[in-house]
């Protein structure tokens, strides 16, 4: 029989106002096995904890029940308290009489009665508690960053800086991500490539960083400290080690009319291509959907012109398996498809473009060489209309319910750049709200209005009709109380951004949770913003929510700091509440193995003593406590009840049931 001490907390008036704590302590003090029961104002305070420790010594307690706030709040606190007094920390049970009692009930009588029952259940459970010792599992000192945009690069650089090995997996042929497509960055207007490409080169040259470009993660197994990841390296049909990136093949390839995704289809590339001049790794890739040689077996021009002999038409996808201690998701974002917004004539006129397309149209390495020209006829646009919140802040049925956050600032940037480069243009920006919280952001927007004379109009564009080479824009000016009709040459839509489509399947592999918009959920919205609720999985950049570049970089470094903190440990303390099979009862039927999400269960043929001095060979389950996370799926799948969960054993739960139903 345990010697149980019961400690009832008032939590100031939080509990004591609704629950008669004195009576609870009195009644519970008369439960079998309870040798000490008391109540105190704040159990979690220094004095309260000392009270518990003194009682453990004085009454030689073997089990402790604390009737207080939720175990999610202070279970850890009280476990440590008891551990300091020499008691095994797992001999503590919490009866939640605040969140699940005093705070939800008004009637003092019934709340007190319920508090007593919850206390009884905890006492019944603690009688069956057994001391548990946490094991430890080693940490693989290597990190994986999934996504090679600015978020992934920054995270990888910071981790490598701390001396740990880190791999970047990028699905595109080059790292760099969306930032490579951007022309200038707000609020300083420095050139995106000028600040990004040095980082890309740093990553490529850092001996601690290994880049798997044109690759995808196909499976993730294991757990914090010990992830086993399979990476598919897609066939480039070009030997990365031989290709010098000279680009001759990309000039000679006869397949010329493949829409160039780097320029968002505004110009064409060849079937063999290097996305852009500063690509990392700078090697060519054959687009298997476009290459004549791969499709029909006839051509081979690139192979003939390649002096390095890097072309390999028979290359196959290869798979790499590696182990990591931590994984960072940095899968980024994409602008949404605009097919639900045809009032803006995006599908009808090439002169209606998205903001990202405008970046390419203004970029010196873009399809127009940096001169802003209309895609339809190559003329200079004189009147440009920007439409904000296209698909953001919408009903779920129509678009995204959230604010995409970056559009206000990049639209101000675009408007400003247009007016700066081409002072003869009229620039209108239609806004619902202008949101500029950020250092120097509002100043930037005001400059666009005050210095550059951009017409900011509170209102929205209702429709755009292409007519005689012009775009007839009908819009509202809510402050002016009028409806506007503008003949525009170019309409720019600030499309909402959404998480990359690879994020959802990745989240499933990582067992990391996502919100309804497919953004990764953080472990705590305020206090743990760069960690996923799944231990060992961290979040970097826009995969967690819309972010601009400064925020992305800040979060990327924060995620790196968390990863470094994890990898600097040699081993991790395991949760001791793991499944434990009773070999004598195990049938060896494999039911438990099939439901284990972690592959923690294996089987062993073991000899047992049979009747009459015989020896029986039986197949019995074994649980790897370092891998088991303690969900308990196996305990229910087991027909004989041989599998039990420490800390939540069958008997403990039954004892709680019995105490409640008594």
């Amino acid at each position: 029989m345990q010697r149980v001490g019961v400690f009832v907390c008032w939590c100031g008036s939080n509990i004591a106002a609704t629950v008669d704590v004195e009576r609870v302590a009195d009644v519970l003090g008369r439960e079998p096995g309870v040798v000490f029961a008391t109540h105190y104002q704040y159990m979690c305070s220094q004095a309260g904890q000392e009270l518990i420790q003194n009682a453990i010594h004085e009454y030689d307690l073997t089990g402790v029940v604390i009737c207080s706030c939720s175990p999610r709040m202070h279970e850890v606190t009280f476990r440590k308290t008891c551990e300091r007094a020499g008691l095994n920390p797992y001999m503590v049970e919490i009866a939640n009489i605040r969140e699940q009692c005093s705070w939800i009930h008004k009637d003092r009588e019934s709340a007190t009665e319920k508090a007593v029952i919850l206390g009884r259940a905890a006492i019944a459970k603690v009688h069956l508690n057994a001391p548990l010792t946490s094991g430890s599992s080693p940490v693989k000192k290597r990190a994986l960053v999934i996504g090679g945009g600015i978020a992934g690069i920054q995270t990888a650089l910071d981790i490598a800086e701390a001396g740990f090995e880190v791999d970047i997996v990028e699905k595109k042929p080059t790292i760099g991500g969306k930032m490579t497509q951007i022309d200038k960055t707000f609020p300083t207007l420095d050139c995106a490539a000028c600040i990004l490409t040095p980082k890309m080169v740093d990553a490529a040259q850092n001996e601690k960083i290994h880049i798997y470009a044109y690759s995808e993660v196909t499976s993730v197994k294991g757990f914090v400290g010990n992830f086993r990841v399979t990476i598919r390296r897609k066939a480039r049909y070009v030997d990365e080690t031989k290709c010098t990136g000279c680009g001759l093949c990309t000039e000679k390839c006869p397949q010329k009319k493949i829409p160039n995704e780097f320029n968002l289809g505004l110009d064409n590339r060849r079937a063999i291509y290097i996305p852009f001049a500063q690509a990392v790794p700078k090697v060519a890739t054959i687009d298997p959907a476009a290459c004549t040689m791969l499709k029909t077996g006839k051509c081979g021009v690139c192979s003939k012109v390649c002096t390095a002999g890097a072309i390999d038409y028979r290359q196959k996808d290869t798979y790499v398996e590696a182990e990591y201690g931590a994984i960072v998701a940095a899968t980024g974002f994409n602008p949404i498809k605009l097919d639900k917004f045809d009032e803006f004539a995006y599908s009808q006129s090439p002169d209606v473009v998205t903001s990202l397309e405008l970046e390419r149209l203004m970029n010196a390495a873009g399809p127009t060489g940096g001169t802003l020209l209309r895609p339809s006829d190559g003329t200079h646009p004189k009147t440009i209309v920007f439409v904000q919140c296209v698909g953001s802040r919408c009903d779920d049925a129509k678009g995204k319910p959230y604010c995409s956050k970056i559009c206000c600032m990049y639209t101000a940037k675009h408007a400003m750049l247009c007016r700066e480069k081409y002072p003869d243009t009229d620039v209108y920006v239609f806004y619902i709200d202008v949101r500029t919280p950020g250092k120097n952001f509002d100043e930037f927007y005001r400059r666009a209005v005050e210095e550059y004379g951009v017409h900011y109009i509170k209102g929205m564009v209702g429709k755009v009709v292409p007519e005689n080479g012009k775009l007839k824009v009908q819009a509202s000016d809510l402050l002016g109380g009028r409806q506007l009709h503008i003949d525009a040459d170019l309409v720019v839509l600030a499309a909402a951004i959404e998480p990359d489509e690879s994020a959802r399947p990745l989240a499933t592999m990582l067992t990391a949770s996502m919100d309804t918009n497919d953004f990764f959920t953080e472990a705590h919205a305020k206090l743990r913003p760069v960690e996923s609720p799944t231990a060992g999985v961290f979040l970097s950049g826009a995969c967690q929510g819309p972010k601009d570049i400064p925020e992305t970089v800040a979060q990327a470094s924060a995620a790196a700091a968390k990863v470094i903190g994890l990898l600097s440990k040699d081993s991790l303390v395991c949760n001791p509440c793991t499944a434990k099979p009773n070999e004598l009862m195990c049938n060896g039927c494999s039911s438990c193995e099939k439901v284990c999400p972690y592959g923690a269960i294996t089987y062993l043929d073991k000899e047992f003593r049979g009747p009459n001095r015989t020896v029986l060979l039986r197949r019995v389950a074994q649980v790897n406590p370092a891998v088991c996370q303690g969900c308990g799926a196996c305990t229910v799948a087991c027909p004989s009840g041989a599998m039990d969960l420490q800390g939540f054993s069958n008997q403990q739960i039954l004892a709680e049931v019995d105490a409640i139903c008594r």
Partner: protein
Amino acid sequence: MQERLKQKAVELLENGGADRILGWKTGEFFYDLTPAVFTSSAEIEREFVFSAFSGANLSKYLIAESRKGGKVAAFLKPCDSYSFQQLLKEHRILRENVYIVGVQCAGMCDMEKLRARDCDGVTAVRENGEKLVAETLYGERIVDRKDVLLERCTVCKSKKIVAFDELIGEQGEEQDLGRFAEVERLEAMTPEERYAFWRGELSRCIRCNACRNVCPACSCETCIFDNANSGFRNKAAADAFEENLFHIIRAFHVAGRCTDCGECSRVCPQHIPLHLLNRKFIKDINTFYGPYQAGAELDSPSPLTDYTTADCEPSAVLTRGGNS
């Protein structure tokens, strides 16, 4: 048929194909056949019986027999072979130590039903095609075999022998004789009627554990009802729900693994239709998660250790049609 089986048993023992033979022999009465292990030709000649009363499913005994060293040969009827394969799937039987002789089955008979057909004082039963000739103290009686079949044989799910090393008789096919009709009849009742039905049936339980002991799926090393640490072992019924709890739990424990061999109902001395609990689970599994027959395949995932993301919610049970 009996002679062919005997001949095969003797042959296996003599040519070294098996060290032991698992079959049936007469128990207290001629119709009361019990599973038995034979080790010599003489024993086979003297005691081996295969008749219309060889209902006992021998598969369960192979769990222990296959671990005793040497090779054991067993005769399995179609329904027994499902149980056997299910046990193989659960790694309970060491396949390499077992030699299976599949035996086609014409349906096993129920002595109670025979007695009910004016056959008191039966001393022996001869098989004659579709007819059974019962010798009684009051003269010979002839009955149709189909009229005195065990319940499970009247709705036989399959004549197919799913696992064997050799066959005696023809291989058969799966068949649908409406084994869920009785479950459906109960489902169509009002809850009050169902409650009354089951309360009446289960209240007869004397907790003799025959159902558990005969069931091939109930082959745990230690049953939770025998395990002091499970919290479910009671020396006496703790309260009025005790036996019912036993049957619900037993049915749940074998859900997804029960092959519907019908042994539980065959051996129940109180004639409780226990198979109707198991069949309910089988029917629900078929309805909710697609057709599944335990033991039919060696590698298909068992419905309770499997899932799809599109599975129905438990509330589907509460809102579906039928009486409420």
